[in-house]
């Protein structure tokens, strides 16, 4: 087991970001997370990566307790993430963004210039290598989020709505890339609103509502769960019948 959360809680005043979350991520799997806006999806990533500290509960990564480990330590243990709203280092070039990640985020000596260049190629950023990240389009900012996370040589990749705002073609390209990465052994946890993209990659799905896991399991079964339909898709089974 790569990642294990046990009874994790997080509150901001009256708002519950994580309500007794217990979940795990198997090594090599691709896990999807869905939920309405404000369901606590990004907070969950922030708890996993250490940007937020859990009020209670335990988080284990690679089998050891990282509940109190810093963001940096977790990154160097092999956790890579992309941000929902891209956070490029704007005054650095695309290449320098990756170089920073490779230099500081790799736990061992697995970095090299050639490898950084290769990540730029597979993420479609090779032509933008020497462009300032602040001048990139949305698509390229999203690509950079992924590329920069990859430059830290992660075992676990947490993707936060990386397909949001992309065209159908761009989205397809991204899906193929994520599938490739997963096939090469990178474990993926993917938060996404674009469900068809998500379902084409993940083999397991978790649904969040107000910080609580309301369903998890095989994607098709989860999507047909009446609770999920009501909460996430806003579909009431009774209403369905009436319409029919």
């Amino acid at each position, binding site marked *: 087991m790569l990642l294990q959360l046990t009874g994790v809680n997080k509150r901001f005043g009256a708002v519950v970001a994580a309500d007794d979350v217990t979940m795990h991520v198997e090594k090599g799997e691709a896990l999807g997370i869905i939920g309405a806006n404000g369901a606590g999806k990004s907070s969950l990533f922030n708890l996993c990566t250490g940007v937020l500290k859990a009020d209670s509960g335990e988080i284990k990564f690679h089998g050891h307790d990282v509940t109190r480990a810093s*963001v940096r330590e977790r990154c160097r243990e092999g956790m890579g993430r992309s941000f929902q709203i891209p956070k490029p*280092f704007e005054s650095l070039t695309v290449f*320098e*963004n990756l170089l*920073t990640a490779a230099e500081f985020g790799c736990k061992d000596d*697995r970095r090299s210039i050639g490898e950084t260049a*290769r990540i730029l190629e597979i993420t479609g950023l090779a032509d933008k290598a020497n462009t300032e990240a602040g001048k990139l389009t949305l698509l390229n900012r999203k690509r950079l989020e992924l590329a920069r996370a*990859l430059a830290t040589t992660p075992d676990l990749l947490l993707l936060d709505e990386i397909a949001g705002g992309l065209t159908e073609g761009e989205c397809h390209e991204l899906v193929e890339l994520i599938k490739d990465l997963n096939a090469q052994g990178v474990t993926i946890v993917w938060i996404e609103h674009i469900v068809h993209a998500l379902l084409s990659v993940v083999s397991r799905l978790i649904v969040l509502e107000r910080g609580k896991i309301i369903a998890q399991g095989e994607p098709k079964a989860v999507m047909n769960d009446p609770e999920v339909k009501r909460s996430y898709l806003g579909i009431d089974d009774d209403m369905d019948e009436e319409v029919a």
Partner: protein
Amino acid sequence: MSDTHLDTSAAKKAFRSGTDGYSVAVGTRTFRIAMVVFALLIIGLIAAPAFVGRSQIRDMMQIMLLIGLAQCWNLLAGYGGLISVGQQAFVGLGAYFMFYCIIYVGMDPLVAVLAATVGGAIISVPIGLLTFRMQGAYFAVMTWVVAEVFRILASIYPGLGGGTGTGLPRSATSEMFGIEATATLFDMRSSTSREVVIYWAMLLAMLVVVIGAYYMLRSSRGLALMAIKDDEVAAESVGVDITRSKFIVYVFAGAGAALFGALYHLQKGTIDPNSAFSVIDWTAYVIFIVVIGGLGTIMGPIVGAIVFVLLETFLADFGPWYLMFLGALAIVMMLFAPQGLWGIFTERTGIELFPTRRRLLRDGKERP
């Protein structure tokens, strides 16, 4: 498609061996030309005492002092995001520490300057541990408070004259390393050669700080600092050690301020708490210089210091109006040209004399 896959094992081995044709370049043609010009300039500055007068030597020392201090503050604020208004703490501590080493330990003044620099670096660690607990404006206030505490401590310490201060014993400075040789070399009086030796020390100190700052920015620590400045959360998420990066800058700037504080007071020969820990002289003017020249560039503080000394020279007769003019100028610059004089120059011409951009090349060529 298969040849562009991220192959996690074989590809990495191949790439590390450097057979892939990729390389990184930082320097530019302009940079290489600039280095030649700088080298000539440095040779000229070393030789300057042979052909310029004592007052020009003093003016140049003033400029070099301000370049050094401004470079330190620039590194703090422009790269570390640390807005300190307490750098006078290190200037004063460096100066007092040097006086102590000369008077009580009997060190040669130049050795005492080195000791003061090391002392500045060491004392900046506990001060940093204290001030780093604060964020933003609170950090700024805290640095000032710390500097005031040291000023008060210096004024109640009787060993170096308390509030009225003290002077260096004549014997200590007249026997300083290099004075005799310099006096013989240039055929000058020992009081003049003393100033020449301090001038060279100041030149060396300035070069060490400017070149040191530049190499730090070119190193991976420079990448970390830029990343932190752009987005702290993202920087931490890719493994950048934020506190450590800021601490390195803080210690560098503390050591630098102590070094220049010691050199300045060695030249002056006297010390007192109010001038050694002066917030106006060691922080306000320095901030002005960085703002005028351009924050976050190596050339900015250099340009700013030269402009400042020119203004000081030509406007000295106007008394308080001169200070009001400086204030107004700083406000205008901050409002309309926050990038500073050097920033404007770079924008217009594209010339960057101290490049830090790491460009990815393939087979020696840059991609568009």
